[in-house]
Structures are given as structure tokens and as C-alpha cells.
């Protein structure tokens, strides 16, 4: 997947990236360098290829042309990756285990308190509301040592309070040297964000 080596291992970059889905070219000639500490807001109409771009960067989509270098990142798709039979704490412990990290329950509980789901920390995720599950997912991004966050419409199902928290968390992550690529339809209130607007190519390539 990695085509050439960049000097800074935390820089995400792609040049002349074009993605295709089900035989349709979504976007072409996309160039961007996402340095550590920046937040990219990914805009575009429904079907413009926001999710496909994020999945490509996460390594989940192989129908692309061009080059990109993406350090291992946290990917948050429409499916949250939480098992409904397990409690938030157990899910977070599993995520830590996947990355071979040690899991600090106290740290996770502190974040749960910050996100307002501390009383639910030991309730199976299946009994949590969509917004509460999103909050659990936010804890997992913070706990992961990975510095690049690829977020696909993270504001979905969040209430006003949680939206504010999400913006705070993204800003903090960027300040601590992480980078965020976030597809959204609602403006992020993060300072110094870069906006990348996905538009369909003028000329549809007939075949690759």
C-alpha cells in the first residue's frame, strides 16, 4: 500500500489519487498533504466519495489509482465496531488488545466521565443509544496510540453537548501533534482547519 517513503512518518499524503466504486469514478487528481497537527474537513455531496476516500486511506478500498502514504490510523466508519454484548469497558479493552497496548481502566473511566457515560461503563453496548455508543467510540480514538484519525461523519447522532466535546477532542488531538481527516456535513468548530471539497470529475473516465 505504501508507495514511497516520506520524511515525517506521521504525514498523510496523496497525490493524483483517484477512486472508483462500482465502475464509477468518484473523484480524480486529488492532492493533499496532511501534516501532523492539522485537521482536514472533508466536504462533498452525498455520493461524492467521502467515505470511499476515508476507506481507501484506511486500507479498506483497493479500487484507486495514484499514490498515497498513510500512517496506520484510527478509522471510524458508519459501523462503530462495538460489540453489543460487551460493555464499553470490555470493548475498549479489546481495542487495546488488538493494538497490543496495555489497557488502563482508570484512564478509560476518566474519559468516560468526561464524555458523560460513566454510569454506563458497565452496561452492554447493545443497551446504549446511538449517541452514547458514538461517545464510547470517541474514547477509543483517544486511547489509541495512533496519531491519524480518519472519521466518517462523527457528528451523526450526537447531541449539542457531545458535538461540542467532539470538537474539543479533535482540537486537542491536533494540538498534541495528531492529525484528523473528518468527513462531515456539519462545520467543525476547530481552528485552522483545512477544507477539502470533493467534486466529481468533469469528464468521466470510460475505463481504467
Amino acid at each position: 500500500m505504501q508507495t514511497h517513503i516520506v520524511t515525517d512518518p506521521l504525514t498523510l499524503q496523496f497525490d493524483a489519487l483517484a477512486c472508483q466504486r462500482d465502475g464509477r469514478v468518484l473523484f480524480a487528481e486529488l492532492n493533499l498533504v496532511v501534516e501532523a497537527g492539522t485537521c482536514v474537513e472533508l466536504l462533498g455531496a452525498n455520493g461524492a466519495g467521502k467515505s470511499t476516500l476515508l476507506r481507501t486511506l484506511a486500507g479498506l478500498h483497493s479500487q484507486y489509482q495514484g499514490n498515497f502514504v498513510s500512517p496506520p490510523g484510527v478509522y471510524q466508519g458508519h459501523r462503530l465496531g462495538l460489540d453489543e454484548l460487551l460493555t464499553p469497558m470490555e470493548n475498549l479493552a479489546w481495542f487495546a488488545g488488538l493494538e497490543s497496548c496495555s489497557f488502563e481502566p482508570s484512564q478509560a473511566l476518566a474519559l468516560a466521565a468526561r464524555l458523560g457515560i460513566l454510569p454506563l461503563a458497565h452496561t452492554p453496548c447493545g443497551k446504549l443509544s446511538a449517541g452514547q455508543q458514538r461517545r464510547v467510540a470517541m474514547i477509543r480514538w483517544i486511547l489509541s496510540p495512533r496519531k491519524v484519525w480518519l472519521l466518517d461523519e462523527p457528528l451523526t447522532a450526537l447531541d449539542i453537548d457531545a458535538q461540542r466535546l467532539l470538537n474539543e477532542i479533535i482540537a486537542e488531538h491536533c494540538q498534541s501533534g495528531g492529525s484528523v481527516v473528518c468527513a462531515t456535513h456539519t462545520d467543525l468548530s476547530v481552528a485552522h482547519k483545512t477544507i477539502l471539497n470533493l467534486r466529481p470529475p468533469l469528464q468521466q473516465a470510460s475505463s481504467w
Partner: protein
Amino acid sequence: MVGALLLREWKILLRARASIVNPLAFLLLSTLLFAIAAPQLVAEASQQASGILWVLVLFTQLLSLDAMFRRDYDSGTLEQSMIMADVPFVAVLIRIFVQWLGTGLVIVIATPVIGPLLGLSWAAVPGTMLALLLGTPALSLLGSIGAGITVGFSRGGIILALLVLPLFLPVLIFGTDIVNAAGAGLNYTAQAYWLALITLAALIVSPFAALAGLKISVEMQ
């Protein structure tokens, strides 16, 4: 990594008890159906018991295989384990192992009950248990290949059966042979070695093939 992953699977296995109870109930019920529909087949010390038992075991496995990755696929944990895991291979292998614990091992333990109900002689029960202990891991491993490929289909059950049943044939051949030999009081060491060989070969190949199938399935999502 292995510890945390095993712990998760173990907790899920205990909380979703249907994944253990349902295959066992299916096995018992279909045994009962045989006893009702064809009592002459399952008469005391009949020659057909080995074949009937193994075919029922294959069907039981097949039913449980469809669910092997289904929950993880729907909840998104599968794509997360592809992205986030240090070694996705380990995550897949653990999933297969736990699926075997819930079906294969349960079948082995239930053999002293199921076998005699199908007309298996008591002398053949230890050999049958050995055959199932050696053979069922191969069923889970080979089945995981089909389960990985078909998890993206909303109704993949029949395709899964068509893909996987031919792979089960070697296990079926040596498995029934061990049960027959045990029933006749013969030595079945050679067949047991063959069955173990099949399982080990499946252990080497299957997790990689299943992982490749899962990657395709996740990409289609």
C-alpha cells in the same frame, strides 16, 4: 494481544449462549428424527451409525459456520480488527478456535449421549470421541474459508454449504472409518494419524485463506 482477544471471545460465547445451545439442540433433534423416521437404521449396533453421526455433525457445523463472522461483520468489529490489529491473522485464528469450542468440542462431549441414540455400540464410543476430537477442528478451520467469503452476502447460507461441504469430504472419509473400526474392535491408529494430518494441514492453510476472504468481504461493505 492474544489474551485480550481470547477474553473477549470467551465473554461473548458465554453471553450468547444460543451459539452453543442451538447446534446441540439441532444435533439432538435430528438424531430423534432419525430414530422416528428410520428405526431400523438406528437399531442396536447398526453399521450405519457412523455415517449418520458424521453427516449430522457436518450439518451441525454448517449451521454454526454461517454465524462465525456474521456478528463481527455487522457490528464493524471485523473491519476494525483488519485495520487496528497488529496481526489480523491471530484475530481470525482465535475466532475459529472459539467457534470450535462452541460446536466441535460440545459435540465431542455430547457423543456418549448422541452415539448410542443412533445405535452406536458402547465399545465404539471412545474411538468416536477421538475421531470427532481430531476431525471437528478441521471442519471449523476449513469452514472458516467459506464463512469468510460468504459473510458479505445477506443470504450466504446455501453458497456456504456448496463451498464448504466438498472440503469436508476427507474428514468424513477418515472420520467414519475410525468409528467403523472402533465398532468392529479393530486398530484405528493409522486413520487417526491421517485425520490429525488433515486437521494440521487445515490449520496451516485455512486462517490465511479465511483472512483473504474476509478482506474481500470487508471491501465490499
